[in-house]
């Protein structure tokens, strides 16, 4: 087990900057998910940790050891590839034994460890089977077992669930989390699926366009996004983000949301941080609003999306797209005008110019 330290890590491919100024500390035994859309630099980061590519700048340390120039075969890193990279011309046994054999572990010891691992991953009945043609969940377990048998200090997983259908993904998520608890290894998990990151990781690192935007526990990142990208990326649907301007009226601070009207008064903390007349982005989660007969934002309903357990209302005039998540029996039809009351404690404000959160409300 080892901690991972990334300092000012950067990578450029020609004139393209894949990663810039990445600083991240991953504690011993921690499960960190690198989350972001395609091309955000998460796989580049992962490949640099594993040693497949050399950083253009910055430093990677495992514990106290500087990893510069250490070839990937000597980093003690277990890697599970997106497509599992199983050696399909070998049997399950040969796959599991590969690393032990390549590093010259004696035959008796090798057999014992392969059998233990097979037992642990429920692969024992399959040991003699050729690896070609096994089902995806077995391939995944095999890929994990093949790396885990080397007892690596660090485990890296590159979108291991992206080839699996949605129903099976839920099963595999549980299984992976369980395996991590058993192995107690430092794990870095790359994914573009927020659900995987939220459910499995101790901490999430959200990335976009080669930059690390926010690191924190899943709940913290979800509740207090540090900027508009994180706010919109996390959650399904993501946070509602409406452009407006802070105004002072009758001694209380509100946000003028244009055609949607004036917002409810802002809380004390937000009022103190937001200067009057400032261009801001007004954010709230679709779950944090309800329909009311009293004061609130008056909005037309453009579309009613019923997804079973919940109903999502798409509301707003041109320029605004506001989503709200309600009970599935909400009595609203397309074309209705509704009044939306937003829970004031769950409002987040962002600077319209920088996109950064104005104040962290707790």
């Amino acid at each position, binding site marked *: 087990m080892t901690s991972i330290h990334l300092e000012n890590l950067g990578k450029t491919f020609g004139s393209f900057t894949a990663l810039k100024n990445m600083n991240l500390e991953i504690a011993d035994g921690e499960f960190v998910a690198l989350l972001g859309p395609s091309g955000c630099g998460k796989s580049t980061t992962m490949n640099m940790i594993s040693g497949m590519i050399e950083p253009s700048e910055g430093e990677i340390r495992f514990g106290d050891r500087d990893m510069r120039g250490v070839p990937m075969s000597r980093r003690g890193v277990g890697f599970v590839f997106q497509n599992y990279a199983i*050696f399909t011309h070998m049997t399950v046994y040969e796959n599991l034994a*590969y690393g032990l054999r390549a590093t010259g572990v004696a035959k008796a010891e090798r057999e014992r460890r392969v059998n233990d691992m097979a037992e642990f991953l429920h692969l024992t009945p399959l040991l003699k089977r050729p690896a070609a043609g096994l089902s995806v969940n077995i391939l995944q377990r095999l890929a994990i077992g093949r790396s885990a048998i080397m007892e690596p200090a660090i485990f890296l997983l590159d979108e291991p669930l992206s080839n699996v259908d949605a129903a099976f993904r839920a099963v595999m998520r549980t299984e992976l989390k369980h395996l991590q608890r058993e192995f107690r290894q430092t794990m870095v998990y790359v994914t573009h699926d927020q659900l995987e990151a939220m459910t499995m990781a101790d901490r999430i690192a959200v990335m976009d366009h080669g930059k690390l935007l926010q690191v924190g526990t899943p709940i913290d990142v979800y509740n207090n996004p540090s900027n508009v990208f994180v706010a919109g990326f996390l959650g399904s649907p993501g946070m509602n983000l409406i452009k407006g301007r802070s105004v002072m009226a009758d001694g209380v601070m509100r946000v003028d949301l244009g055609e949607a009207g004036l917002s409810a008064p802002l809380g004390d903390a937000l009022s103190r941080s937001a200067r009057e007349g400032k261009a801001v982005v007004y954010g709230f989660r679709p779950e944090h609003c309800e329909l009311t007969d009293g004061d609130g934002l008056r909005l037309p309903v453009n579309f009613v999306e019923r997804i079973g357990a919940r109903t999502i209302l798409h509301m707003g005039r041109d320029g605004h797209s506001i989503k709200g998540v309600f009970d599935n029996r909400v009595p609203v039809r397309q074309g209705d005008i509704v009044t939306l009351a937003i829970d004031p404690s769950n409002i987040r404000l962002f600077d319209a110019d920088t996109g950064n959160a104005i104040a962290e409300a707790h």
Partner: protein
Amino acid sequence: MTMAALDANTPVMEHEDTRDSRRLGLWLTFPAQILVLFIAVFPILMQVYISLTDWSPLDGIGWWQAHELWNSFANYSDLMADDRFWSALWRTVLVMAICVPCEFLLGLGLAILFVDDFPGRRFLYSVLLIPMMVVPAVAGYMFFMLFQSGGPVNDILSFFYGAPVTIAWLSDPDLAFFAVIVSDIWQWTPLMFLILLAGMVGVPEDQLRAATLLGASWATRFRTIVLPRMKTIIIIALAIRVIENFKVFDNFYIMTGGGPGVATETISIYIYKVTQQELIWGYVAAVALVILIALSVVSALAIKRMSREVSQ
């Protein structure tokens, strides 16, 4: 008509349909079948027929009348006793046993060098493929000139040796054998390289990385991942070269004419000489038939092995 009635009728109709369509198919492919018969089967039958006679075009009778010169299996028994035939066959196998492994190892080595990118790779790649595109007869003439006693090969040797070297490459039986083998390797290593490189590029990058991360050295990866994954393509490459090399003729004939003596006489050169110079066609037909059968057996074994690999 109800669905049930349709279902009940379907099997019968299908039966008649297949029989009809089979007959139609036969008629439609009939011209092509005749053509194939004339291209493949007819010459072989003709060859078998002639091989059982003493016929030669100088006899003044058409080949279809060759039965007048029937000699039963005399050609085949002559063949068994023909030392020149056996030595040519042995030499051909020897050439193959030297050339094909050399070409394979050189091609594999080059493929290893070219599988990763380096500056000038594309240019060098094109240059390396040039020998393969040279007409074999031209290549033969090139090497004929290179190996002259006053030629470039001796000039280069003189330069390193420090004194004039005048080796008569193509007049000495052993050296001539060496020279023709060099020309074959020069010409056909690129083909081996091309096929093996294609196979090597097809080895999944992720598997190699996975093996590296598991601590496998380059040699271990090559032995356990690259070679097993290239097995099919290696068999194909070897099969192509074995069959081609067995028929080697052009550059050998131009460089040495099979000589000095019979030092470089391969089976093709032998057949050519016996046909053109001694004009005993019945005998040649017997020789060619034996070679054809031998090669077919070898190819069939290779193909069988290959299809087993592919199906796995």
